[in-house]
């Protein structure tokens, strides 16, 4: 896995301190380091899970990305090699220390792993982390597969150590979550441990004014920082990671008669490009391309270090076999494209007068005229567009001969054509088959469903008195509370924003109830400052902490409410106590696990009562729903309190009104259109929520032995 390769690359670069906050697709970097550390401690016969001894890499799941980075910075100032991991939106949280750090520089190497998520598969944004490079003057490394992720991580440590600068190792979903075979260094565990020992003996903070940021120091350091970028760009230009692949080199002798096509690409797009060209090459029915192959040289330049842009390398690439057509292929933003265009402009203005070698008549294709700016790429997209470029060029040649050249028009047409293609209309054959839609939804038996449903029900009562309820959600599993039929999320923005948004809403929406849902990990991440603000500024909101005692969405990482650290146990920080100490006076805790017992109705009515009273409370109130995440339990385990209780459906009582499905949307309930009946699927956890909904009493709990 790409993420595992990054982790191993870091460990083999004498890593001492690793911090991070979980976020898909970055999470496995930290998880791999933790696993490796645990394994090596076993070899060391050290089962203390003590994080601070000489032969152990210190690992930590921090409460948020800013905290993670600041911790690593402290360690780096002391000479330790460090890694910080997060997803792209996490870097926004950590951008404050990053922007300042770059002026001071580091001591031990500091590599920030940031994973982007084109499409996005599981993120709030499609932002491109490469921009942080030029924004913050931080070198960026952008590997194309797991092997390069391993090698480039080691190179990132080298550059960070050499130039005393923080660096960003950027990955994308396909790399982070893709698997390749990887050849790694032959380092034994003992060697790693020995190296770590020597490394750690040299670590120690040395006081120096250079570690304290002051306006004067910044203005002194800024020119040095800019200078550094030029040097690093030169290093990058000479590096083997930015390399050229010659795609068709037959008939090399009459090369001079041929025209030249250059493709500049990076990351997984490099492979998409190679494969797209290969498919076109093998497609003997594609005359245009075969023709093209005979008349053009195609060269591909892969850029694995997008910032500082390796200018000399790219310039050589353009000038060598002077390119007639240049194409940039990259996911998300036009970083390579912008830099190449900039370079061509710069080169033309300096060279133009002294020799005739100007680059004005290069045809350039990128995101401005052809490639999509949004979403993930794949071979099919790249193939279609390369084919288009080739066709256009052949057409252009013909048109040119006919003195009929309207290039602008051509480009516009292409873009329109592309958009049509992308819709994929007419591509699907045999659509007479109806495939099921598997919407993301809260798991069957998920405790969050009970909380959402209870508040929806109480909100209905308020509605009768003409009081509207606004639900603010947050980022985590419980974001799925937004999907119908629960639809209990009216706003959702970013980690920890639910409480502050609800507070803001409450200021300008009179006669409303404002509820903020937040998860336990998110509460610690950045919920607490919002609580303090709401209380201190006397807002009227209800905070609902959905506490399943884990960071469920990313795979059950610990947080300060769990009693666990990345390694070993810790003292729990109690959410109820935190809320109370922030002066939230009305705090209730509801134990959801009680819900699964036989006095269903009574328990549920109690929940409703609690919800109602906390919504009625003037000021900041809070309810904590505490329970287990169903995915944490071993499937089919009989651990549950209701171990002999099974939810059953009585087909004689059920009139197929579908109310149970329409109200809570539990994935364990299904309407069977063939038999006009309700089916209880295997995934039912017997949580019992649906029993409270059926007006006919068709759903009930039965004792089974």
């Amino acid at each position, binding site marked *: 896995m790409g993420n595992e390769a990054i982790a191993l690359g870091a460990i083999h670069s004498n890593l001492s301190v690793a911090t991070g906050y979980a976020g898909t697709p970055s999470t496995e970097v930290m998880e791999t380091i933790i696993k490796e550390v645990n394994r090596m401690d076993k070899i060391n016969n050290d089962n203390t899970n003590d994080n601070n001894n000489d032969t152990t890499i210190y690992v930590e799941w921090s409460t948020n990305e800013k905290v993670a980075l600041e911790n690593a910075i402290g360690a780096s100032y002391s000479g330790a090699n460090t890694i910080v991991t997060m997803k792209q939106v996490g870097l926004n949280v950590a951008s404050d220390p990053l922007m300042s750090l770059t002026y001071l520089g580091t001591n031990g190497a500091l590599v920030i792993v940031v994973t982007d998520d084109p499409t996005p598969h599981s993120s709030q944004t499609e932002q491109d982390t490469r921009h942080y490079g030029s924004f913050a003057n931080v070198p960026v490394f952008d590997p194309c*597969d797991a092997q390069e992720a391993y090698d480039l991580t080691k190179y990132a440590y080298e550059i960070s150590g050499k130039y005393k600068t923080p660096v960003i190792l950027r990955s994308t979903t396909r790399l982070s979550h893709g698997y*390749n*075979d990887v050849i790694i260094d032959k380092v034994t565990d003992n060697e790693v441990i020995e190296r770590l020992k020597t490394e750690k003996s040299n670590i120690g903070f040395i006081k120096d004014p250079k570690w304290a940021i002051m306006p004067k120091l910044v203005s002194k350091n800024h020119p040095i920082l800019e200078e550094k970028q030029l040097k690093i760009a030169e290093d990058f230009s000479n590096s083997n990671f930015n390399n050229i692949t010659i795609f068709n080199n037959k008939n090399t002798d009459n090369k001079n008669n041929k025209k030249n096509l250059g493709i500049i690409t990076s990351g997984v797009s490099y*492979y998409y490009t190679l494969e797209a060209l290969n498919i076109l090459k093998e497609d003997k029915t594609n005359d245009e391309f075969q023709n093209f192959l005979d008349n053009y040289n195609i060269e591909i330049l892969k850029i694995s270090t997008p910032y500082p842009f390796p200018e000399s390398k790219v310039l050589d690439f353009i000038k060598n076999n002077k390119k007639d057509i240049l194409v940039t292929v990259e996911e998300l933003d036009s970083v390579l494209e912008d830099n190449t265009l900039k370079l061509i402009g710069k080169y033309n203005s300096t060279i133009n007068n002294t020799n005739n070698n100007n680059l004005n008549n290069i045809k350039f294709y990128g995101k401005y005229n052809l490639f999509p700016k949004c979403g993930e790429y794949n071979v099919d997209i790249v193939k279609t567009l390369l084919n288009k470029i080739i066709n256009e060029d052949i057409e252009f040649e013909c048109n040119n001969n006919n003195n009929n050249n309207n290039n602008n028009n051509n480009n516009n047409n292409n873009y329109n054509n592309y958009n049509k293609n992308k819709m994929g209309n007419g591509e699907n054959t*045999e659509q007479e088959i109806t*495939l*099921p839609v598997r919407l*993301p*939804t809260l798991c069957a038996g998920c405790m969050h469903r009970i909380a959402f449903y209870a508040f929806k029900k109480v909100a209905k009562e308020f509605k009768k008195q003409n009081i509207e309820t606004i639900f603010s959600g947050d980022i985590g599993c419980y974001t799925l509370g937004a999907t119908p039929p629960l639809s209990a999320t009216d706003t959702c923005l970013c980690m920890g924003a639910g409480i502050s948004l609800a507070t803001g809403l409450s200021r300008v929406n009179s006669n409303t109830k404002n509820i903020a849902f937040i998860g336990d990990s998110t509460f610690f991440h950045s919920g607490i400052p919002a609580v303090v603000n709401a209380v201190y500024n006397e807002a009227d909101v209800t905070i609902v902490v959905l506490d399943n005692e884990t960071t469920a969405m990313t795979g059950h990482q610990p947080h300060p409410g769990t009693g666990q650290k990345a390694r070993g146990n810790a003292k729990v920080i109690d959410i109820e106590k935190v809320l109370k100490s922030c002066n939230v006076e009305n705090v209730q805790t509801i134990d959801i696990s009680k819900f699964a017992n036989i006095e269903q109705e009574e328990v549920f009515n109690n929940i409703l009562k609690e919800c109602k009273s906390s919504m009625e409370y003037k000021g900041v109130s809070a309810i904590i729903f505490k329970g287990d995440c169903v995915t944490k339990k071993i499937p089919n385990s009989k651990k549950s309190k209701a171990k002999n209780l099974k939810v059953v459906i009585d087909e004689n009582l059920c009139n197929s009104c579908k109310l149970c499905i329409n109200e809570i949307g539990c994935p364990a309930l299904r309407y*069977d259109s063939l038999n006009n009946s309700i089916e209880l699927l295997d995934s039912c956890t017997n949580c019992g929520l649906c029993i409270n909904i059926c007006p006919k009493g068709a759903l009930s709990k039965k004792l089974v032995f």
Partner: protein
Amino acid sequence: MKKCDIIISGVGGQGIVLASRLIATMALRKGYKISTAETIGMSQRGGSVVSNLRLDSYRKGSLIPKGQANVIIGFEPAEAYRYNEYLNKDAKVLLNSNPIYSSSKTPENEIYSKKEVIKIMELFDKNNTLTSCNFNKMALEFGNLKTMNIMMIAIACFNNYLPFSVNELNNTIKEEMPSKIKDINLKAVEFAINNFEKYANINSNNVIKI
């Protein structure tokens, strides 16, 4: 070494990710270069899951382009059919005929039923080499539904859908799997091969039954 692009698709919780890792391990042992990608929905359970597995002697991106896949191992009929356009003309289809219905409230889900499953099987049978079998029933009779994934791999090897023999599969299980689950998996492989006929959906007269 002949390239083999494999799509494994199904529903979250069926063991797709593990199945694809096992095939990748066999490929590594044979000296293939591999790259795999898993696309998993936001919902951890009950969502569509697809794994792309590429075995080749060259490095490649992990996503299989349309019309290129040689084999699809479909853990669920609709989830297999979803990737129909990724199959090449000679692609082989191994299908678990046991449908998993989705409960999200959409008109499609109310329609998706046994009828649709039969249509899917007929289309696969017409256009591709299809082997289909109720692997859920098979695994349940064996006594452990969770071994369904290994049974599908066993049949894929047995029918020459994958470039590995049953022997190679057994050796990989023996040498690479944790001892706790080694035996049950080896037994599951044997059971699948011996009882395959019993659960097959297409009999010798080419009649589809499910």
